[in-house]
């Protein structure tokens, strides 16, 4: 009885705390100051789109959130756990945070089903048949259950990216990170991936997306963040961001990507 109360308390605490809280974070690649004094709070259920010119540090920023990159100063707190060099914390956070990459990074030696069940079985210790059921559920959600027993090499780019999304979802993450998920795709396939992401957003997933798909940003984002030279230049609701950009750098960027 007491345990249940405690659990409930913990849950409500988790709901009130932000999903990601980044304060005064700095990162260098050698001598290059790639992220400068980043402050960013993402609440549960928020969908954030990060855009900016190449080399502005947007990918590095979201890769810091699951410690694919290490930050040198400031703090990053994900779901109440601070990222430090403690390996246990890192593995814990990584299993709570899903990530999709520009180049999918599916495991080519495993079938689609095995790709989706690997982490649940080995990290979460879920029994195989249960993991397979979950995997099928999410493969249906991304609309490719019929490809479950093929290998990634036999799928199109769009299908591979949807498998990658399903693979992340199988870990039941609380936050999803997308690192330019449509940049490596043919135009015809971009839509199927974006549709999947929109559906995910509608389910209330906390999402951080680095993308240049401004239509997607308008449709699903709560907030659009513009980065340049390693810093957050502007952050606003999509309507305001696109119709009434404040800084000159943002105006220039928007005119270049929306101008044609």
């Amino acid at each position, binding site marked *: 009885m007491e345990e249940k109360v405690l659990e409930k308390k913990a849950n409500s605490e988790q709901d009130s705390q932000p999903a990601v809280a980044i304060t005064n974070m700095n990162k260098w690649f050698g001598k290059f100051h790639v992220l400068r004094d980043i402050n960013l709070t993402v609440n549960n259920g928020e969908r954030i789109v990060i855009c900016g010119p190449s080399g502005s540090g947007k990918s590095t920023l979201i890769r810091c959130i699951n410690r694919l990159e290490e930050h040198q100063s400031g703090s990053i707190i994900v779901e109440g756990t601070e990222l430090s060099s403690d390996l246990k914390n890192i593995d814990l956070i990584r299993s709570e945070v899903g990530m999709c990459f520009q180049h999918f990074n*599916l495991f080519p*030696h495993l079938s689609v089903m095995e790709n989706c069940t690997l*982490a649940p079985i*080995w990290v979460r210790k879920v029994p195989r048949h249960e993991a397979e059921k979950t995997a099928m559920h999410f493969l249906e959600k991304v609309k490719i259950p019929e490809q479950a027993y093929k290998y990634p*090499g036999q799928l199109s780019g769009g299908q591979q990216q949807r498998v990658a999304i399903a693979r*992340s979802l199988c870990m039941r993450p609380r936050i999803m990170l997308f690192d330019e998920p449509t940049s490596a795709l043919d135009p015809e396939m971009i839509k199927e991936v974006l549709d999947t992401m929109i559906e995910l957003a509608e389910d209330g997933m906390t999402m951080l997306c680095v993308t240049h798909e401004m239509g997607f940003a308008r449709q699903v984002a709560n907030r659009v963040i513009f980065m340049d030279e390693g810093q957050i230049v502007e952050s606003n609701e999509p309507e305001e961001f696109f119709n009434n950009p404040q800084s000159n750098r943002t105006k220039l960027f928007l005119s270049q990507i929306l101008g044609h």
Partner: protein
Amino acid sequence: MSDSSFVRTEMLKSEAPPTMEGSVLGWIRNNLFSGPWNSLLTIVFGLLIVYVLAEMLPWVFLSSWTATSLRECREIIPLTYGEGTTGACWAVIRERYLQLFYGFYPRELYWRVNLTFVLMLVALAPILFPNLPRQLLYFSGVYPFLGYWLLWGGTIWTPTLTLAGLIVGYLLFNFLSEKRGLLIGVIVGTLLIIFWFLFGVIPITVFLSENVTPLAIEIVESEQFGGFTLSVIIGATGIAASLPIGILLALGRKSDLLIVKSLCVGFIEFIRGVPLITLLFVASTLLNYFLPPGTNFDIILRVVIMVTLFASAYMAEVIRGGLAALPKGQYEAGDALGLDYWKSMRLIVLPQALKISIPGIVSTFIGLFKDTTLVSIIGLLDPIGLSKAIRSDTAWNGIVWELYAFVAAVFFIFCFAMSRYSIYLEKKLETGHR
């Protein structure tokens, strides 16, 4: 309607290829006579092959299998096939093939060697062919100890106790690494196994043999081993041990931990910088100076250790090539899913890296197996060492080609089998990637 405008009203159906494609004639034309230069090459090499065969085949087949000495051979062959014929004297193989296969292993115990070899094939089967029942792998695990006992004989307690020690050490490692962390598991597990080897196995063996039952079969000394038996023992043990050691060395070389990395780099570079012969000489002579006087450290074991270390250094570099060929995204995807280092290596990185390295790994295996003939230089009687011994027999003094051709043929069978298996494996693991 302008020239640049075109609209297809009906999509084309796929049709059968022209008749030349796929027929034998078509194949010959495409592959042998596709142009004047290719036709010329085909004819020249065709003639060359015919010439070589015409010279070689009579020697191989106009031969004697029955003579008892080289001199007799040289008399019989012209008598049977006509004046001036010089054929091969295969009689030497007929007389000495048992020795070439078994060395000086006691004749009445040949069955033990044969049984070990057959059991080796059984133990290899589940490793080579993943669709066989997995339970067979337990036999593969027990096999090295069983094989050792069958070949060298003596009491069964020594290999059994050794195996038991390893199993207990492994279970302890498993238990501790779950509860107390990997490092403590490795240290305690290893210490237990070393302690068991140094102070446990021999006294308990002696006790059990004297007080319970010896369960012993006749002992065969290492000096009696020879021929292909010796080559296969050294080769197979070296191959089985060098792959896991090579994997660990390759991972160590890519590690972020400075000490681990330096040790691995140092080991690999040292071993690769030294000829195998040198290591074998160290094993056969120098090692005695370093060991306490009176220690009886088996010569075959010493050679196997050296060959294994040598091959693992090369193996490590081959596998490092495979690791380097994997896109960084594979490592990142493993990390992003929350897999720890060992799980990510075992489930994601190594299966792919090893697959990429198959040709290199098998080359190293084949190289290792052929290098076992070098032990003849330190006086072990492998097939080459035996050939020398046979040639110094007065009856066969002066015979060269027949012996070496036979040894070469047997080695070819083993090496070709390994090569074909590697091709089979590559095809099997192909998943349409790239």
